[in-house]
C-alpha cells in the first residue's frame, strides 16, 4: 500500500475508536457547553449595564434632574431620573424592583432621604449627594446675586486637558484581556499535554500489546506514527474548535459588548498555535512512548516533555504579569518549546511585535520538522525493541 492511504487508515482508526469512547464524548460535550457558556453568561450578567433608575418624589430644586445625570456620568454610570407623585407609590416601586432608589425631600436645605430596597449603591450615593450639593449651592449663589449662567459655568467643573507621556498609553491590556490570555495558556498547556500523552500511550499500547508487529507486516513505521499523530491531533483540534467556535462566533456577533475586543484574535491564535505546538511536540511524545517496556512507564518516559510544557505555561502567567517587559522573558517566549503557550497571550494583549510572531512561528515549524525526523528514527528503533525500557541515547545512536 502506498504511503498516504496506509497512514490515512491508521489515522481513521485512531479517530473512530477514540471518538467512540465515553470519556471523549463527555469531555467534548463539556467543552461545547463551556464555549457556549462563555458567550451566554456574560450577556446575562451583563444585564447590570442597564441604567440605574431613580425617582424624585415631591418638590425639588430646579436643575436637580440634569445635575443628577451629570454627576452619574462623571462617576461612570448611566442614570435615568423620573418623577413619582408621592412617597408611597415610590416606596412600592422600589420594593417591587421597578426603581433602584427614590429621593424624597430634595427641596430646601434640610436632610433628604433616599429610599432603597436594601442598601444604597456607593456610586449612586456619591452622584445624589454631589447633585444635591451643586443645585443647593447654585440656588445660594443666585440668591447672593450671581447670574445663573455664571453660577452654571462655575459649577460645571474646571475643564482638564490630559496629555499622556507614555507612547504606548491606551494600548495597555485590560485585566480581562490578561485573564483571557492566561486562560488560553492554560488551555494550550492542557490540550498539548493531553494529546501528547494520548500519542505516547497509543504508541506504547501498540508496542506492549505486540500489535505493532502485526501492523509492521503491512505498514512502514513512519506510516503508523504519522497516522496516529494525525488521528489524535485532529481529535484534539476538534475538541478545541468545539470550545472555540462558540466563543469566536459570540465575539464576532456580540463581541464588542460582552467580551473583550481581543477575544476573536485570541481564539484564532490559540487554535493556530495548538496546530503548531502539536506538530512540534507530538512526534517527540510518540518517540518517548516507543521506548517503554510497559504501559505504566509512559508517564515517567514523557516527563521531560511535560516539564517543558509546564514551563511554557508558567512563563505565560509570570511574564504576563508585567506584560512581558523583561527582555529575557521576551526571548524565552519566542523559543519553540514555550512559544505555543506564550505567543497567543502576547498576541492578544498586543505585546508581540510582528517580527516576533514570524520568528517564533518559523522557529517552531523548523524545530517541528527536525523533531519529526528524529522522533521517527527513535520510534522505528524503539517500537520493535523488546526487553527493558530503552535509553533515548541508544535509540538515537547510529544513522
Amino acid at each position: 500500500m502506498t504511503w498516504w492511504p496506509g497512514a490515512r487508515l491508521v489515522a481513521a482508526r485512531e479517530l473512530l475508536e477514540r471518538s467512540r469512547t465515553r470519556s471523549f464524548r463527555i469531555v467534548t460535550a463539556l467543552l461545547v457547553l463551556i464555549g457556549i457558556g462563555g458567550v451566554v453568561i456574560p450577556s446575562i450578567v451583563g444585564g447590570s449595564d442597564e441604567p440605574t433608575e431613580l425617582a424624585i418624589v415631591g418638590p425639588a430644586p430646579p436643575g436637580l434632574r440634569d445635575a443628577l445625570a451629570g454627576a452619574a456620568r462623571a462617576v461612570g454610570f448611566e442614570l435615568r431620573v423620573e418623577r413619582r407623585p408621592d412617597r408611597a407609590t415610590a416606596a412600592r416601586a422600589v420594593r417591587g424592583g421597578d426603581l433602584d432608589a427614590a429621593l424624597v425631600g430634595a427641596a430646601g436645605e434640610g436632610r433628604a432621604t433616599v429610599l432603597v430596597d436594601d442598601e444604597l449603591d456607593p456610586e449612586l450615593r456619591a452622584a445624589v449627594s454631589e447633585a444635591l450639593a451643586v443645585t443647593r449651592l447654585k440656588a445660594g449663589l443666585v440668591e447672593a446675586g450671581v447670574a445663573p449662567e455664571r453660577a452654571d459655568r462655575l459649577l460645571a467643573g474646571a475643564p482638564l486637558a490630559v496629555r499622556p507621556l507614555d507612547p504606548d498609553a491606551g494600548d495597555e491590556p485590560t485585566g480581562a484581556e490578561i485573564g483571557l490570555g492566561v486562560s488560553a495558556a492554560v488551555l494550550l498547556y492542557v490540550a498539548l499535554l493531553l494529546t501528547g500523552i494520548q500519542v505516547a500511550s497509543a504508541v506504547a499500547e501498540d508496542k506492549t500489546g505486540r500489535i505493532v508487529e502485526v501492523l509492521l507486516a503491512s505498514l512502514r513505521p513512519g506510516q503508523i506514527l504519522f497516522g496516529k499523530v494525525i488521528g489524535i491531533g485532529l481529535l484534539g483540534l476538534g475538541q478545541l474548535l468545539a470550545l472555540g467556535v462558540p466563543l469566536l462566533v459570540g465575539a464576532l456577533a456580540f463581541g464588542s459588548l460582552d467580551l473583550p475586543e481581543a477575544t476573536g484574535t485570541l481564539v484564532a491564535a490559540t487554535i493556530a498555535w495548538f496546530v503548531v505546538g502539536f506538530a512540534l511536540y507530538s512526534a517527540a511524545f510518540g518517540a518517548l512512548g516507543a521506548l517503554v517496556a510497559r504501559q505504566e512507564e509512559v508517564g515517567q518516559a514523557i516527563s521531560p516533555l511535560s516539564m517543558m510544557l509546564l514551563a511554557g505555561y508558567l512563563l505565560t502567567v509570570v511574564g504576563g504579569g508585567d506584560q512581558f517587559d523583561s527582555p529575557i522573558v521576551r526571548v524565552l517566549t519566542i523559543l519553540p518549546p514555550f512559544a505555543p503557550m506564550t505567543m497567543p497571550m502576547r498576541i492578544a494583549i498586543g505585546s508581540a511585535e510582528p517580527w516576533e510572531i514570524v520568528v517564533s512561528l518559523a522557529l517552531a515549524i523548523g524545530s517541528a520538522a527536525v523533531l519529526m525526523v528524529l522522533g521517527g528514527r527513535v520510534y522505528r528503533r524503539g517500537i520493535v525493541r523488546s526487553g527493558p525500557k530503552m535509553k533515548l541515547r541508544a535509540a538515537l545512536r547510529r544513522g
Partner: protein
Amino acid sequence: MLRLDDVSKRFGERRALDRLSVAVPPGEVVGLLGPNGSGKTTAMRIVFGVVDPDGGRVLYEDRPLDPERRRRFGYMPEERGLYPRMTVRDHLVYLARITGMAAPHARAATERLMEELDIADRAGDRIEQLSLGNQQRVQLAAALVHDPDVLVLDEPFSGLDPVAVAGLTETLARRAAAGGTVLFSSHQLDLVESLCESVVVIDSGRLVMSGRVHELKRASGQRRLRLELEGADGTAWARSLPGVSAVGANGAGGGLRLALEPEADPLRVLDAARAAGTVHDFALELPSLNELFLEAVERAPR
C-alpha cells in the same frame, strides 16, 4: 519456498541467531521448535522485517523480501497482537485494509472468515469481552484475513485446550494442503510432534536438526523401550545388557524408558525384565523429538 539464509542477529552481548538457515516448503505445516530463548521469535520477526538481521537474508521464492511482498504474509505473534477495545469485525476489516484490500473486499473476507472460524456470532463484541479461546481464533483470523500465501504463527498452541489444538491443527493443515506455506513455533517439542510433518529444531540461535519428523527419528538409529515393571528395584537388572541404558524412570507404577543402541535386542531385554519382575507394559518406540533434541544439544560443542 520461504528460506532464511545464514541469518545472524545479536542483541548487545547476546547472540540471538547464529548463522541460521531454514527452509520452509509450501504444502506442509512446518514446526520451528526450540526451548524458550532459542531464537524462534527473533527468526519470525526477521521474516516480517520487524527486526533487521545483522547478517544473512530472507528469501521467498528465491527473491529477497520487501514490504510489498510481505503483504502476502500473515503473522500471528505470541501474545495478543490485537486492540482489546475494538470489535471483532472492525478489527479484522482494519487489518485487511492495511494490507491493501479495498473496503468491500475486506468486509466480505472478514464475514467469510468469522463464519469459517465460528466467531460470527461475536462479530460486534469487543475483543476484550471474548474468552481466551475465542480471542485466539480472532488472532488467527487476523493473520488469515487477507488470504496470505505464507502464514507464520508464534506459539499458536500455547494455552489451548485439546479441542482447540485439534481445531487449529486442522485449519493449518487445510491452508498447507491448499498450497500455502505454514510455519509455526513451539517450545513444547513433544506436544507438537504429532501436529506437523516437518520440524526445524533450534537452540541458542543455531540449527540443531531439521527434516521430516519420522525421518529424523528413524535416522537416529535409536529405539526406546517403554516398560512397566513390578517387583524390580530400579534399573540394576538392565545394566548388564549390551547397548541398553536407562533414559528415565517414570517413578509411579514402575514405568521405565530404556535407550537401545542398534545392536541391542529388545527381546533379550524383555527376558531380563521378566526375570526381574512382572511386566505390565512393553513397547518399542522411536525416540521422541524431545529426547533427540536433548541428545543433540549434549553432543553439540558449547
